[in-house]
């Protein structure tokens, strides 16, 4: 084929035109008196692959959250898995734009890995803004083979406990190990299940006889199993209330906490380093799924985001949807209050911290 000069110029024009459209699209933004977030898109980064608890929560909450942020921005949930959260938080801490349009969601495990200084976890939570967090709580339940009818039967299971967990260092694994220690039970932990869903299936198969979950799947998946007599739910780790006491998670008001369980079994309050370590994890659970902004985001924008979150959890419509989708009411700890729980966690003494390793 032969082309005339005109046709060649035309082709060049098409190429340049394409590039031009691209750059205009990338750069289009209009500033006016409107609220900052008006017409903007917030990117919320989830540090894990799609489909997990943190991802579910981020997608669920952001769908509602936008309605309460002045200017009603769009929210895009994106996944950046790597290093158990280190990649996302490293990015947020040092690379992400500081305009309040890039946020990240942490799971309970990320502060633990930060505390233990796992490789790559070098970002500083203290310099970042914690916007809000949705408290979680771990649950712990036994399979049929352990034959636990009431809590005191638990004492007879020492040495027979085989707990199924995802990996060494996961929040549930740490806290269930500590609970067995606290109760003076001999146990064995089997790591390697790819999710607590798989561990739960192993429980049903009788491969393990103890495993755990969290507040977000309790009502939807675990409670029905108890109703059918497949599992015995023992306790929840609980969370810290505003006075710093261990309280029940709002989504699980009928499930005893570990503290209550201890009192029931031994007739006294738990104490000692193991209990302090459990309380440390409870503090992290209180933080639960937490939403973070990079360092240096303008104060006013943080306020907008915080207020939006506060209004969201106050809205009955949101709570109704939370019960439907997440299986229970979804409280939130906002801003400074949430920071306090974290400060407590990072202030743990070394002899407590070493129990997490």
């Amino acid at each position, binding site marked *: 084929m032969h082309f005339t000069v005109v046709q060649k110029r035309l082709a060049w024009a098409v*190429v340049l035109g394409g590039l031009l459209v*691209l750059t205009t*699209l990338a750069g289009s933004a209009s500033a006016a008196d409107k609220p900052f977030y008006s017409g903007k898109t917030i990117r919320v980064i989830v540090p894990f692959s799609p489909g997990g608890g943190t991802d579910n929560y981020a997608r669920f909450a952001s769908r509602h959250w936008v309605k309460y942020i002045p200017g009603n921005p769009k929210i895009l949930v994106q996944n950046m898995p790597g290093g158990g959260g280190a990649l996302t938080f490293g990015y947020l801490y040092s690379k992400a734009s500081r305009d309040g349009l890039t946020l990240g969601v942490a799971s309970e495990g990320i502060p633990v890995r930060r505390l233990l200084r796992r490789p790559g976890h070098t970002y500083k939570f203290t310099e970042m803004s914690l916007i809000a967090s949705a408290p979680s709580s771990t649950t712990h339940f036994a399979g049929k083979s352990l034959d636990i009818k009431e809590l005191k039967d638990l004492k007879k299971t020492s040495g027979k406990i085989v707990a199924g967990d995802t990996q060494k260092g996961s929040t549930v694994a740490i806290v269930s190990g500590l609970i067995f220690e606290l109760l003076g039970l001999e146990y064995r932990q089997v790591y390697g299940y790819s999710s607590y869903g798989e561990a739960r299936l192993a429980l049903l198969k009788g491969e393990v006889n103890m495993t755990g979950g969290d507040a977000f799947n309790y009502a939807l998946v675990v409670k029905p199993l108890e109703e059918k007599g497949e599992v015995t739910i023992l306790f929840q780790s609980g969370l810290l209330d505003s006075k710093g006491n261990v309280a029940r998670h709002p989504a699980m008001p009928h499930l005893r906490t570990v503290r209550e369980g201890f009192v029931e079994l031994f007739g006294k309050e738990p104490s000692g380093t193991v209990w302090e370590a459990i309380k440390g994890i409870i503090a992290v659970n209180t933080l639960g799924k937490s939403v973070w902004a990079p360092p240096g985001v303008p104060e006013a924008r943080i306020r907008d985001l915080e207020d939006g979150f506060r209004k969201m959890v106050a809205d009955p419509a949101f709570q109704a949807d939370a019960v439907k989708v997440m299986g229970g009411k979804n409280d939130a700890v906002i801003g400074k209050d949430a920071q306090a729980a974290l400060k407590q966690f990072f202030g743990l003494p070394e002899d407590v911290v070493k129990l997490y390793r």
Partner: protein
Amino acid sequence: MKPSVGRGLNLFMAGLFVAAILSATEWPVHSRAFVMAIAFPGLLLTVVLFVRQRWWPGTEATAASPGLGDTPLDADLPPALARRRMVNVFGWIFALFGLIWLAGFEIAVPLFTFGYLRFQARESLVVSGLAAVVMVALIVGVFNWILHVLWPQGMLQGWLGL
């Protein structure tokens, strides 16, 4: 191609197994056990293969497997030409990688498409240009609009402060 490639590859594999064994010695037994269970037999097999290649070259299998059974390249091409083209195409692949690193996907991919078609495939300007535009459309339409892909910024944009 030549038996020497096979031998080199076998040597490389042996090195890989040795490196795996050495690096795993420090690990706790649960992490180490599976590595050893694979790497030691692997090393043994490379030794067996080496012995066979060295002393019984007749028994050595020449070409491949089920799976893309290949006719050897030099069956119908002069080896020198084949080698030149091979270096050339890998050059283009690395060029694309470098370009992505330098300028980001959104610029690198259309540019690479255009460049390859125009200068390597000797296509007309129109065809090359259209292909580049199609790539832009694909990136903008599918990846940016529908999937909201976060492209990493190229180094160039970083240096220029864009």
